[in-house]
């Protein structure tokens, strides 16, 4: 049956980049629809009426929202090159750490980047603790997924890209080679993967975009 796959995304959204990576890893042909988040299309608002966000995957007319949920849908629908591990315990660990990144690590790190000077030391210490916990999960492996990219690597695009961008914009050091040699090594391998290279926006573009996004916040500092 002819498959129709569309991805509503935005070039600077790492969440929508996650989906691009997964679709490309599976060799799925798809149409990318670039959204202007200041002026969301009627289609996006229709397909994600609850959250009104990207990414949204539209598969044969059926919409799925929330990037981690879309990743699992992709893995269960296109069975080549599985991105989640087979073993239920390993799957649970992958899901745990992906949620950790989205629900805890990013927010604690944002605190570290955005805190006032007097609170910053403590916030940075806390964020480093969380980063260390994630780094420990890599153990001896090339990637979180083992020898090749997996679900957790894709989720961790936030670590590979967002931290570097934020460090430059906010002038706060967090994820350094000195403190996180193993995690930084992973970042290097991740961004070097051909598929990731195709999907990751250039850092300078992201920095510029983020500076504009945060201009009011930066002005108030």
């Amino acid at each position, binding site marked *: 049956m002819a498959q129709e796959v569309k991805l509503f995304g935005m070039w600077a959204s790492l969440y929508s980049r996650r989906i691009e990576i997964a679709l490309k890893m599976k060799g799925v042909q798809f149409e990318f629809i670039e959204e202007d988040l200041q002026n969301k299309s009627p289609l996006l608002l229709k397909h994600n009426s*609850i959250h009104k966000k990207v990414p949204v995957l539209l*598969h044969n007319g059926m919409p*799925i929202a*929330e990037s981690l949920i879309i990743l699992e849908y992709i893995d269960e629908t296109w069975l080549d090159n599985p991105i989640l591990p087979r073993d*239920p315990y390993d799957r*649970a660990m992958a*899901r745990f750490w992906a949620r950790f990144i989205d629900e805890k690590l990013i927010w604690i790190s944002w605190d570290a980047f955005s805190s006032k000077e007097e609170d910053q030391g403590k916030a940075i210490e806390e964020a480093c603790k*969380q980063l260390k*916990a994630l780094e420990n999960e890599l153990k001896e492996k090339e990637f979180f997924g083992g020898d090749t990219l997996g679900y957790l690597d894709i989720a961790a695009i936030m670590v590979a890209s967002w931290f570097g961008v934020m460090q430059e914009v906010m002038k706060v050091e967090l994820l350094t080679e000195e403190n996180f040699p193993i995690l930084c090594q992973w970042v290097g391998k991740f961004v070097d993967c051909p598929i990731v290279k195709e999907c990751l926006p250039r850092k300078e573009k992201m920095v510029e975009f983020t500076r504009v996004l945060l201009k009011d916040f930066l002005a108030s500092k």
Partner: protein
Amino acid sequence: MGEEVKLFRTWSSPFALRIVWALKIKGIEYETVFEDLSNKSPLLLQYNPVHKKVPILVHNGRPIAESLVILEYIDETWKQGPLLPKDPYERAMARFWAKFGDDKVLTSIWSVFIKQGKEQEEALVATMENLKFLEEEMKGKKFFGGERIGYVDLALGCLANLISIFEEIVGLKIVDEEKLPLFYSWMQNFAEAPIIRDNWPPRDKMIVKFQALLDAAIASSSSS
């Protein structure tokens, strides 16, 4: 092989209740370890160093934390009484609604309970909007899982108990049967299902606990 299943929980944690229900639906034997969160055991801290919370499921010595992650683990490990649907799209929808429950519904209902004045009014409006989405999702179904209780029912299920407790304490109607008839019936149907009904925490203890939380919140907001 001898299975060893332990559940670390508190008597009142709604997230831990999800796991109790799932284990009972699947008929899995398990040992309960009750935690006092004001005095966390070394085992809890060892098994969940990242969040230091309950519930934690320990299966043959290996710990899993985060209730929705645990539910999926249980469903993938013990195949009887499946909680998630088979079809990938329906599975995605189930995961979506469970996440919506945690991120939006529980949050807004908690705000209705713990906040006062304008913030409470705004939380009530948000809650109504959120519950309307769930109302829509209930059309033609007895449970979110269909004929049988499933993953989404377990994820949202604590509401079938907590909402009436909150309503009693703050004296506000959160779920009006006339405005949300399907959601209201779901709460009744869910609460009355034998496995669910037999495992609610004692209501009087819950009222005391949440009243104390509310009193503390009011005291700290008026002293600041």
